[in-house]
């Protein structure tokens, strides 16, 4: 998922987008400015408790630096033209996406299995559509 590119599609589908990162509020502000995602809800989880509760895992060395991971990361970096900067927080922590409905159910989840594994916006939108229509909202 490319946040700067896909946030409008997600909002148009009636889904609020909330980004959670490890680090400090200042790290999050730097991230917001660098990725041109002003107005996006960005939260900070220094303890990584939400990562744990979401089921996100801590990677092995191979899942961070293996040849397949590095190759996919290089291609992604060239495509998005967003350079990798210094890591803030736990370097081996992986992320993911959960789609959560108002009743607390999770009809879609994609948790990274290695550092190059990212969720597909199309899959998120398809899951939101299956879950039922929602009015268009911003977020």
């Amino acid at each position, binding site marked *: 998922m490319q946040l700067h590119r896909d946030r409008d599609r997600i909002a148009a589908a009636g889904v609020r987008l909330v*980004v959670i990162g490890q680090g400090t509020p200042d790290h999050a502000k730097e991230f917001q400015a660098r990725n041109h995602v002003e107005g996006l809800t960005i939260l900070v989880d220094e303890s990584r408790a939400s990562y744990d509760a979401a089921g996100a895992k801590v990677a092995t*060395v191979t899942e961070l630096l293996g040849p397949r991971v590095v190759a996919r990361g290089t291609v992604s970096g060239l495509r998005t033209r967003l350079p990798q900067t210094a890591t*803030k927080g736990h370097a081996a922590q992986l992320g993911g996406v959960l789609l959560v409905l108002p009743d607390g159910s999770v009809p879609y989840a994609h948790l990274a299995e290695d550092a190059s594994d990212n969720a597909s916006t199309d899959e998120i939108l398809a899951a939101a559509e299956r879950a039922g229509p929602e009015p268009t909202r911003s977020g």
Partner: protein
Amino acid sequence: MVVVENPVRSLLGAAPKKRFARAPARADDLADLVLKDLDGGDVRLGDTWRDGPVALVWLRHYG
């Protein structure tokens, strides 16, 4: 037997053994967690999906 620690693994804090990520079927364990917004204010995670569906995206890091 002497166990030699992998220095790269130690540096990165990487896991010693592969495990599979496991997503919850419900977000109940997430609902009462309180995170900080950009201004340092408290945000209860469950409030983000109270009024409609939310895509919660956990970044690897802000880098």
